[in-house]
């Protein structure tokens, strides 16, 4: 977007997550207010994987944390299963948390190094006082095997004994312990080797089918997003540029930013001309975003209108929305 709008939101109410006009502001050490997320709207339907893709500083991780209510927001609405959670706090917030869980990029540091794997996975059940000891142990065994770990072998070991890929499996098992409806994945495969990356993506897909999850998948990598998601939201400098079904986005990006992003990805095939740098420079500072369309300072198609008027998300083909005055 570099623009705003809610045209892409479903009208019917079966959304697992519905975020409207979410704003998150950080204060810099100099006392300056920086809007990392400025008026984002998105929804995730039941059983859907929605990806949010963008480069460093576009606000995608801030968005994920704000949806989880890990950081405060400065306006907008967050509905999980039709329940408004943007203003909840304390015990009320705690009560909705089991329905939404999160896994992080650095799985090793997100697991307590002193706890055994089986206790890590069991902990949410103990906190919520669910089941008796035998039931909990059975649940833990079931979860560990479903993410491809042998519970007998790994149960009594500690996270430090495992590789990044295995720790990510443990994190997934732990996140699913309370049977959430929504799983938020913040760059879950970014620090993994490609051969391990595909294992984790496949596990996420299997878990989604098995537990009927909806996924919010945050990533900087459009090819990863392409492999896992149903719909993709492209972010730039705190705004949405484009929302599209995954296949459509790769073959027919309509926003100039998305196009540049797609072209820049090097495809492992020397006969194809890929990995082209279309964009010059780097995104401007979110502390002082350009007027109108936020991408206009780097956009090859920018006109005066782009500086004056913020583009709204508009449907260009079925399910494909773009916020641009001059789409490709």
């Amino acid at each position, binding site marked *: 977007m570099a623009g705003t709008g809610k045209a892409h939101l479903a009208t019917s109410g079966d959304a697992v997550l519905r975020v409207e006009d979410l704003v998150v502001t950080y204060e810099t050490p100099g006392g300056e207010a920086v809007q990392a997320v400025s008026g984002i709207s998105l929804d995730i339907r039941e059983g859907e994987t929605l990806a949010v893709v963008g480069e460093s500083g576009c606000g995608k991780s801030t968005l994920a944390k704000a949806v989880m209510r890990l950081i405060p927001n400065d306006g907008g609405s967050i509905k999980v299963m039709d329940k408004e959670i943007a203003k909840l706090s304390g015990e009320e917030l705690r009560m909705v948390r089991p329905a939404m869980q999160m896994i992080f990029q650095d799985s090793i540091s997100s697991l307590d190094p002193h706890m055994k794997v089986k206790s890590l996975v069991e902990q949410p059940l103990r906190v919520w006082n669910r089941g008796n000891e035998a039931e909990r142990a059975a649940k833990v065994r079931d979860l560990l095997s479903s993410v491809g770990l042998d519970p007998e072998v790994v149960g009594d070991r500690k996270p430090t004994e495992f590789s990044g890929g295995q720790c990510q499996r443990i994190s997934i098992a732990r996140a699913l312990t309370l049977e959430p409806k929504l799983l938020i994945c913040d760059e879950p495969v970014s620090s993994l080797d*490609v*051969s391990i990356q595909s*294992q984790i993506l*496949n596990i996420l897909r299997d878990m989604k089918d098995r537990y009927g999850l909806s996924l919010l998948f945050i990533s900087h990598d459009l090819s990863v997003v392409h492999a896992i998601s149903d719909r993709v939201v492209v972010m730039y400098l705190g705004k949405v540029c484009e929302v599209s079904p995954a296949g459509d986005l790769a073959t027919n990006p309509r926003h100039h930013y998305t196009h540049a992003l797609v*072209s820049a990805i090097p495809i*492992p095939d020397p006969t194809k001309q890929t990995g082209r740098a279309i*964009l010059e420079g780097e995104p401007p500072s979110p502390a002082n975003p350009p007027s109108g369309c936020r991408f206009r300072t780097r956009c090859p198609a920018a006109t005066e209108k782009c500086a004056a008027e913020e583009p709204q998300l508009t449907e260009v083909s079925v399910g494909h929305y773009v916020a641009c005055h001059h789409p490709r």
Partner: protein
Amino acid sequence: MSELLKITDLRIDFHTPRGELHAVRGVSLEVDSGESLGIVGESGSGKTVMSRATMGLLRGRRVKRSGSVQFEGAELLPLSNKEIREYWGTKIAMVFQDPMTALNPVRRIRSQMSEALVKRLGKSKEEANARALELMKLVRIPDPEAVLDKYPHQLSGGMRQRVMIAMAIACDPKLLFADEPTTALDVTVQAQILELISDLRRKLNMAMVIITHDLGVVANHTDRVAVMYAGELVELADTKDLFARPRMPYTEALMNSIPRLDRQPGARLPSIAGSTPDPTMERTSCGFAARCQYATDKCRNEHPELTDDGNGHLYRCFFPLGGN
């Protein structure tokens, strides 16, 4: 093309509390002047250790090095710290993954850049200054004069990497090692930096070794590619040939497991089961046998040698794809 760098049977072992860790297990490799070689491998493949050993950056009591590294016919491994310094900058230079830790955080870019020019090339302060500005323009830094007066933390990741590249090419090296030069960067910036490095290589007639985990990066920026796995060179071929006809099952599996935009969205990715072998163990089998879908008893009991298919395509496999 003449041979610039010749690595023969390079072995690097680290003494660790767990025992001897064999990080590089007898790698032989040549780099011709002006060529661009890609070295691809996953974590623990030994690609970074190999390049650092070649540069003479790995030394000390805990490192055991054997084999030979020759640069223009001169042996590098036995050189002392002081002697190898003569090679750095003017003959071999390196660009690292993380420019923030490679640059000195408390000195302005100008003073870091001129240091090499004054000390290595004996330039006067004014000459060094002028050359620094010229280099900044060469790596296409906008407003170069202003950037010279900044500290590293005031620059973005992409700008910092441009500064690193400018410093690496400051003394006209004949060979540039780029170790994951774009891994920490966004994809649009990565494309800019890779184009820049390739342009500079042609313009300055440097040889370049790009070390990366990303097959996409080598596909468009190298003449030849070496694939490393668990400390060994497992395949080496012309880039086009490697991608068109991988002979080593590991290379094929790696290519297949990469998510690609030109594939069906949502398609299940083929993955490589298991993980890499224990680096402290001696190799009595094919290093990839435990994860290879084609592995036989022979693969599990004998260690394959690097074989030439007759056209300079090397592979380390008893049963190469496409037949012997």
